[in-house]
């Protein structure tokens, strides 16, 4: 029988490594038994519900090397353990990459932003309530999807990329980082690898159990944003039921270089329409070089929704996505 109301933290070990090597060793040693803990805002609910049962938590927030925002030779680097609030309020981010500041300011609620980390926000798991409830769906290792069914409650689920699972990417910062062409820095005790933001997130067709490419033992330790889109024109909008806490029904992040009314270049990504932040390359290609206008904005919206396959209850996401892309291009 599915668990009845669990509510308190179960017995679980806690490690608080104080330097990178320790943390990476622990992650390597514990593997999937070790839960990487940033601010914990997508952790304690799982543990209290006893729907995930790792043996230990590895807390990363004592590691100063993975915190903070600094300038680099060709952009900025944000430690993955930096809080969302710090990112939203950071002068560098606000002045050059306000797209990220805007997205960060829309995450959850102030108290969650105060302790939640960028890494945590990017790595957060799917919010499909069947999955969160602890039901044995594909994503949980079972062999059914409750949402993608004739009666399934799938209002908040995907328009694209369904492959047995129809959960969406819930993050607000993820599409912003895709639009900014960020690079994820993934560390492990065997070294480091760099992954473009867009390739960091994976859909169920590649891996139905994981939302990112992180392997056991790996930790997302930093996010690098290149100068490419610094001080471009940005647009971020999140439409959700409530204006606090709620995940996006659809969100859009855009970085645009406009000169003399011409869209010189653009990066566009939508969240909450697919299991990954959806980079809208077809739209970008269609409008690059065009004179910005209502028609171009409209056409951008139309192209953005091509191929959308709505479920029972999420048809509204199609016009909503279209409108948000239109607004992003319109500026």
């Amino acid at each position, binding site marked *: 029988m599915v668990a*009845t109301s669990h509510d308190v933290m179960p017995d679980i070990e806690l490690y608080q490594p104080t330097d990178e090597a320790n943390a990476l060793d622990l992650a390597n040693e514990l593997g999937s038994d070790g839960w990487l803990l940033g601010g914990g805002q997508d952790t304690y609910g799982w543990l209290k519900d006893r729907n995930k049962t790792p043996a230990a938590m590895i807390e990363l927030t004592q590691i100063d090397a993975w915190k903070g925002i600094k300038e680099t030779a060709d952009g900025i680097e944000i430690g993955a353990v930096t809080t969302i609030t710090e990112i939203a309020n950071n002068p560098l981010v606000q002045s050059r990459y306000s797209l990220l500041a805007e997205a960060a300011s829309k995450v959850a609620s102030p108290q969650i932003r105060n302790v939640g980390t960028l890494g945590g926000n990017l790595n957060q798991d799917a919010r499909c*309530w069947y999955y969160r409830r602890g039901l044995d769906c594909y994503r949980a290792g079972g062999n059914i999807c409750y949402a993608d069914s004739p009666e399934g*409650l799938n209002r908040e689920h995907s328009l694209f990329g369904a492959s047995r699972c129809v959960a969406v990417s819930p993050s607000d910062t993820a599409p912003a980082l895709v639009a900014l062409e960020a690079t994820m820095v993934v560390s492990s005790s065997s070294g480091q690898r760099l992954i473009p933001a867009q390739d960091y997130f994976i859909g169920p067709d590649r891996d139905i159990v994981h939302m990112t490419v992180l392997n056991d033992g790996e930790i997302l330790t930093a996010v690098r944003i290149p100068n490419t889109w610094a001080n471009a024109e940005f647009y971020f909008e999140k439409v959700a039921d409530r204006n606090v*806490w709620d995940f996006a029904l659809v969100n859009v992040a855009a970085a645009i270089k406009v000169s003399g009314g011409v869209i010189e270049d653009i990066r566009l990504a939508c969240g909450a329409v697919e299991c990954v932040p959806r980079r809208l390359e077809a739209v970008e290609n269609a409008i690059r070089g065009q004179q910005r206008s209502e028609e171009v904005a409209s056409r951008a919206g139309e192209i953005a929704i091509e191929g959308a396959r709505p479920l029972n209850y999420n048809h*509204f996401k199609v016009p*909503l996505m279209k409108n948000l892309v*239109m607004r992003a291009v319109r500026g």
Partner: protein
Amino acid sequence: MAYMHIGKDFVPPDVPGKVTGRIKYAEDYTREGMVYARLLTSPIPHGRVLDIDASEALAMDGVYGILTADDVYPDGEPQSTGLKILTNEPTLVGEPILAVAAVDEKTAETAIASIAVTFERLPHVIDPLESLEEGGPDAYNGGNTFVFRQGFVQEKWTADQVASFRAGNEPSAEPPTELAYGDLDASFAEAAFVYENTFTTAGYPHMSMEPRSAMAYWEDGKLYLHGGSQSLTAFADGIAGIIGVAKEDLVFVNVATGGGFGQRARAGSVPVYGVPAKLSQKINRPVMMRVTREEEFTIGGARQGFQGWIKLGFKQDGTMSAADLWIVSDNGGKGGGGDAFSATNAVSIVYQAEAVRLRGVSIGSNTAHRGAQRGPGENQIAAIVSPILDKAADELGIDRLEIRKINTPQNGDVGGIQRQPFTSAYMPEALEQTAQLFDWEGRQSRRRQRNGSKVTGLGIGQGYHNAGRSGMDGIVMMGADGRLKIHNGVGNLGTYSYASTSRAAAEVLKMPWESCDIVTGRTDLHLPITSPQDGSNSIFTNTRTFWGAAQDMLAKMKEIAANELGGSPDDYDVSNERIHQIADESVGYSFAEVAQRAMELGGKYTGEAELPEDLAEWTQIAVSRLAGSGFMGVYHDPAHSGNPPGFTVTALEIELDTETGKIDIKDIVSVGECGTVMHPQGLKNQLVGGVVWGVGLSVLERHLYDPQNGLPASTGYWQSKVPTYLDTPLKIETGWVDLPDPENPVGARGIGEPTQGSVSAALNAAISDALGGHIFNAAPVTTDMIINHLAGTSEQATPLAQNNFRG
């Protein structure tokens, strides 16, 4: 009328404790030796417990004991709807089956997880219409509805009848309930405009912030129960019976309660308090039963949902001639409330239709139990009727404020299915005041104006709830110190009506407020019975009782003074904490002196003789324990006559973004009409609180159950979409009519519930307005519904679906 206390703001005694965190709610108490209990609740929506194997749990270190339904009901569970203390026959997910007490909660949870409960799974149903359809599953054992004195029965329609209803037609089935007045056919025949459609309003949970945790222990044969309740003595009176302890052996401790909204006023809503009571008795230790947020969702109650059909007729001059309602009410998993009756009543009262009919049936679903929730029936129907009223106005060429004025109830009118006269009714004044404050006239030029992708909508709406009862008891005491002790059995759920109504006693004796003590918070302080604190009744009902009790003390003061100092009682009056001759103020006693005299005289002056007849048993116990200990004023309130209404009017302006479906309330005015205003800040709090609740009902809140497995998705604050700071207006303007009602000594009536109804009426109307008059016939109207309407997107939502809000 110039009062000393009535109509003035003051700091209720519990406020400092609330801002400092000193005031205690049930979960904040500890007791030496206390253990922690948690519940094992049903994981399935409908079933029977065949076997419970708790052997592993009971053998665990730190586990103190278990309580099962068999322990509680050795002679078998009551065969009725309504929550049980524990049950072996759950009809909703989350219904408590057993409780385990352990050294801490983690151990209790681990123990519970080890208990093997074998269930027989029974068919479950989420949508009442599915159950109504022949062949459809029944939520209860033995039927899908409960008939008083008959028991569980099956109510069934044919598949065609259900399909036709879902397709938008008037139900053709025979209704078990039918109430009407007037000549419906004739009234519709007179109508120049008729609107007819099916509609649906969602059920959604109360979600009070304090879960219904409770702590209990036994000492010297008495049960001490710490719990939350909207009421105090009314609740204790009831819970004693549910637990099976004599009234005189129960001490209910409840200094403050974190919200109730209708589902914590009466003991029948919270039988789970019997768990720590009985478990502590069994294991001989204090037991703290903590209820989690998810459990508060499942057993904390919800609003009845409606699957309905409405037909309204309006004459050429805008008068509502006829109102015809057919409502299938969702009774949830444990039976429900009377929302359909109240809804129809409200339509009759607020719009004074000449002919009204209600046909209805209440069907169970294996979802949250239903009962009273803030303006049950009245408030959800307000959201449905108001846009129709606007449509009628537009069609008939009448201003939307005007059509409400044309139909408004006023002094001298009768209303409701029982055609009861109002004690007073100043709705016309409320409408006018709102229109002025809001500048309704001036804003009309903005109606449907476009601002980029945004369009402006305007709405004005009315709310109603009956707002007063009578027949309760009052006690005031005075000791040798001359301080007035107001024995207050009114619950403290956050309205401060316990405090503001106490001021009536101070008013009678012209007592400075600093010389008064409100004696309340625990029933061993000997408090009189009150009516439960629901139904917006407290201000009206308890002003009558406190006034009467103080009048009794005043009469006794005059008597004592006249007997001892000469003259007749009429020669005496009170001022400056003295009883003295009117002609010569120097002849008299201080309150301290007359209280001492009273205590020396004894007899009726100290509650030992000549008590009022008809005191409730609870009050008699309190009086007998106070008797002889001080100067007593005691009173039994006779019945009032007529219907004391609580009315509200709200006007608001919204901007609706046609590209995103999002709504922003730009300006809002809410006005209360509740007779004389006792406590302006308290009233203002009810008005602004009603705005938040109105937003919830109109655009956000709904149950979410998965029809495949019957599990609830909306068990927390996030998924329940309870409105936040950023979903509600930045500033709410409030006002009040403040005209006295004749059936109350200071003219006051209650107001708590209708403050939501007028907001929902206005907001749903404004949304329709912004969308060019499109009527959704639904509440809530959510972002996706608006987007779908504007884009013409179709969705596969089942028409009139209940508890299955599109996910």
